[in-house]
């Protein structure tokens, strides 16, 4: 299944960089957020008879401005409009709901359709001309008439003023009524219907900020157990907390950490072990973490080491010095599972992204590029030469473009359809249907 060779198509935005990508629970909708604070939602079109080889394309369904730039006058700080994360809510009626967040403020959006319009006024005629108000002889009740489908996005709630530091994660709980939001030092629990208060459940801020040794990098709720959530740290560890045990979750119930290999210890060890993303498997049995060079799969029942480790771009280990100088070493790569948890995907540089088949342990490097995304084109595996001699079709490490990074990817919850954000381009690839 990891051979997502594919037909593809792309959407080019203005110079705006995509900052998050997320499928909804059915996979019918795909949302992206960008640095300009906009959210664009794509909808999966039904199969068309003209192009039977296609499962159906994703077309723009709704675009709206979710966040605007703001200024915190008390702290003299600019608050960027960049969308850090989008999370869909489980569908509850004909409308769709999502949470979007920038550094400080989380918003709940409703995306709904309207296909009827009321017609007929008493004081105006069909052309909008006012009628003589003194000559009304009968009352008209408006009548609903069909109209072209209109998709509306409306802000339903704004969850503000609860985070002192930058929000890095939001995650909807499986109880469908709460969600958590995490910043560098704290995690808050919200009720989806209550905006004026949230509960601080984790606080790792030391009394003296000079003693700060680690920050929270990501947090997620368990997909089925509403009381369980995990958060990862810049030290490469993951804490699992049980909200049943106490109201404050400063004490974890599980602590996942892989002992460091002393032989590979270097100046960069701590930086590259920082976890940039953590995701539970759909089954809820495993979780996956991404650090700078690898992806690790952990069994929730085993805390002392991951059950699987996949190297994403091990060839960069010798380049850490220059990657530190150009700040790339601090890039936050995300990772995702496929619908059946049998494969995982994460991004790399040079518009490459990696897929790993957990059963066969095979891996593949693919490239998101204009060439590979022409309709009916097939993605070809790419190789980076690691040894002395470069084979044909291989790319040398030195010629990788570090400005082209794939940080955000998403996998359709059921089908082999993936979405890959490469700076300002969104690529959607899908399995070929033969």
């Amino acid at each position, binding site marked *: 299944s990891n051979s997502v060779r594919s037909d593809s198509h792309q959407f080019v935005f203005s110079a705006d960089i995509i900052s998050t990508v997320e499928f909804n629970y059915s996979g019918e909708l795909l949302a992206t957020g960008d640095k300009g604070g906009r959210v664009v939602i794509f909808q999966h079109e039904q199969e068309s008879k003209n192009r039977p080889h296609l499962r159906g394309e994703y077309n723009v369904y709704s675009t709206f401005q979710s966040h605007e730039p703001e200024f915190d006058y008390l702290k003299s700080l600019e608050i960027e409009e960049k969308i850090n994360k989008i999370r869909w809510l489980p569908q509850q*009626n004909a409308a769709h*709901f999502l949470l979007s967040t920038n550094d400080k403020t989380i918003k709940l959006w*409703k995306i709904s359709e309207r296909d009827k319009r009321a017609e007929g006024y008493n004081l*105006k005629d069909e052309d909008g001309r006012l009628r003589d108000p*003194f000559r009304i002889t009968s009352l008209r009740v*408006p*009548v609903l008439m069909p109209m072209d489908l209109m998709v509306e996005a409306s802000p339903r709630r704004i969850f503000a003023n609860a985070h002192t530091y930058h929000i890095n994660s939001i995650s909807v709980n499986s109880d469908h009524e709460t969600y958590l939001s995490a910043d560098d030092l704290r995690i808050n629990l919200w009720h989806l219907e209550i905006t004026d208060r949230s509960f601080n459940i984790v606080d790792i801020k030391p009394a003296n900020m000079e003693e700060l040794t680690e920050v929270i990098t990501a947090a997620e709720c368990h997909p089925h157990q509403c009381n369980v959530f995990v958060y990862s740290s810049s030290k490469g560890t993951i804490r699992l907390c049980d909200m049943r*045990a*106490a109201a404050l979750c400063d004490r974890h119930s599980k602590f996942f950490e892989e002992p460091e290999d002393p032989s590979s210890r270097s100046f960069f060890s701590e930086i590259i072990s920082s976890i940039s993303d953590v995701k539970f498997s759909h089954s809820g049995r495993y979780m996956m973490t991404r650090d700078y060079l690898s992806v690790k799969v952990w069994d929730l029942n085993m805390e002392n080491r991951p059950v699987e480790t996949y190297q994403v771009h091990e060839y960069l280990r010798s380049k850490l010095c220059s990657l530190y100088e150009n700040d790339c070493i601090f890039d936050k790569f995300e990772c995702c599972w496929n619908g059946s948890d049998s494969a995982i995907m994460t991004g790399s540089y040079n518009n490459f992204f990696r897929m790993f088949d957990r059963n066969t342990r095979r891996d593949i490097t693919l490239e998101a590029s204009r060439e590979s995304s022409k309709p009916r084109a097939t993605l070809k595996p790419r190789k980076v030469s690691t040894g002395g001699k470069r084979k044909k079709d291989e790319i040398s490490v030195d010629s990788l473009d570090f400005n082209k990074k794939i940080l955000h990817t998403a996998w359709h919850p059921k089908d082999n359809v993936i979405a890959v954000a490469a700076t300002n381009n969104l690529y959607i690839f899908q399995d070929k249907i033969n």
Partner: protein
Amino acid sequence: LRGGEVSKMAGADGDDSLYPIAVLIDELRNEDVQLRLNSIKKLSTIALALGVERTRTELLPFLTDTIYDEDEVLLALAEQLGNFTMLVGGPEYVHCLLPPLESLATVEETVVRDKAVESLRKISQEHSPVDLEVHFEPLVKRLASGDWFTSRTSACGLFSVCYPRVSSTVKAEIRQHFRTLCSDDTPMVRRAAASKLGEFAKVLELEYVKSDIISLFTALASDEQDSVRLLAVEACVSIATLLPQEDLETLVMPTLRQAAEDKSWRVRYMVADKFSELQKAVGPEITKNDLVPAFQNLLKDCEAEVRAAAANKVKEFCENLPEDNREQIIMTHILPCVKELVSDTNQHVKSALASVIMGLSTILGKDNTIEHLLPLFLAQLKDECPEVRLNIISNLDCVNEVIGIRQLSQSLLPAIVELAEDAKWRVRLAIIEYMPLLAGQLGVEFFDEKLNTLCMAWLIDHVYAIREAATCNLMKLVEKFGAEWAQNTIVPKVLGMANDPNYLHRMTTLFCINALSKACGQEITTKQMLPVVLKMSNDQVANVRFNVAKSLQKIGPILDSNALQTEVKPVLEKLASDTDMDVKYFAQEAISGKSFPITEYPPESRQHFYKIFIDVQDQLVNV
């Protein structure tokens, strides 16, 4: 053109009575949500004008599809439709209201859905038994088997209203639907079902309570999501009241015991929170055997939230214990736990306990109170957390009835003094508010000796809110202890402040006079207060002078007309020609005798705002 003006402009040809209605109908779709809301709130006017036939065939179909609107509009609509039966033609046609309410019952906004369900419950009673089965029950079924959980959650609230009025076949169907929803895939629906379980149990025949409800209750109480389990605790109360005593042990208690020891603190919290209700529902025998140990455990729970919830229930639980061995149970089982809570590590727990612990003295009587409770009260009075001390002080009346407050006074005084001087002004404010109560309980002698100095010190506090509260406190004290007491103890001190070098303190004298004059009566006001006020009209600070004008206006009604004419009037006239425009303004206001709100400033007076600003700043600096 808006409704109100219409009647004046009645036209020649048209029916002028239609115009306002036409406006209302058009405004159902106005861009301004306030106008739409206004129209929806007058929906009955529209319906009345349209008549029952057109309301049914035109207005209701239109409303059924307006679920795109803002929540507040939908909420108003849902509420209106609950009172619409007569407007659609009476009970015979009440089922016409079901389609719009059905669509409102599926929106995502909980408040709207709940209101729609409330209206549906209301109009269900207006359905004839036949209509209930032909129209209403199918709607409940549709909602119960809807695709979206919003509609299924709404269905949960409707079963209990139709169940008693339908045939036994339909009853069986309803029970089946409820069962299905109790094991729904989404926790939202299971929560809705769990929260309606008790209500549904009440309308069921006892045999089905035992067979159906108990198994659903057991299942929900062991749901994988604690948010569902905790709702089962509430249902437990209703179910326990329905069952005969002999069935409780086998049908309810295993589940309740399990809930009290649940792994999730939220479920245990719920048990603690509902403890008094549970206690009443299961009766004295089970309380003795089961609930007492369960309550002990909750008081010792590892989670502070649970301990605090249990601590809150200590008094009620003890009160409701069977009288025959109440004292013994409290002394041997509850009191040891309470003693530990007094030194709990969490201040919310201690504070929860402090708010009820005094109530135990009436239950345990004088001797036990002195021997066992008094040391606890005293310990709490010395607690480091001001909220704990305040809670003890605010409940002194309970213990006063049993042993008299003198027993406590030794420790009470230092506690009060400490609170009175707390660095946080809100704490000081809170203790001031208890002063009149304390004064009443401690008596005038004790008060003069120990507390009077404190009350006077607050008058020169650096926070305005404290000075203001202190003024009000003096008034209440005078009401309690009488004018003579005031004349001897506080009036001289208050009037002495008129010579204070700080103008804020001089103004406090005026504020006190404003507050006290009525309670002190004409003689004290005229002979002692008035001369001071008049003298202050020469103050160099304008704020003092215009407050003199305001005070004179305030105490005017208490003075006799002679004093008013010969003493007050000349001073006010002098102030009315003051160089300061605010002094002038307030003096003129006082002369013309108008009462005016303080916020109404002369429009041109910027200087006055400046003065107010200074005073506000004085507060801000000290907050």
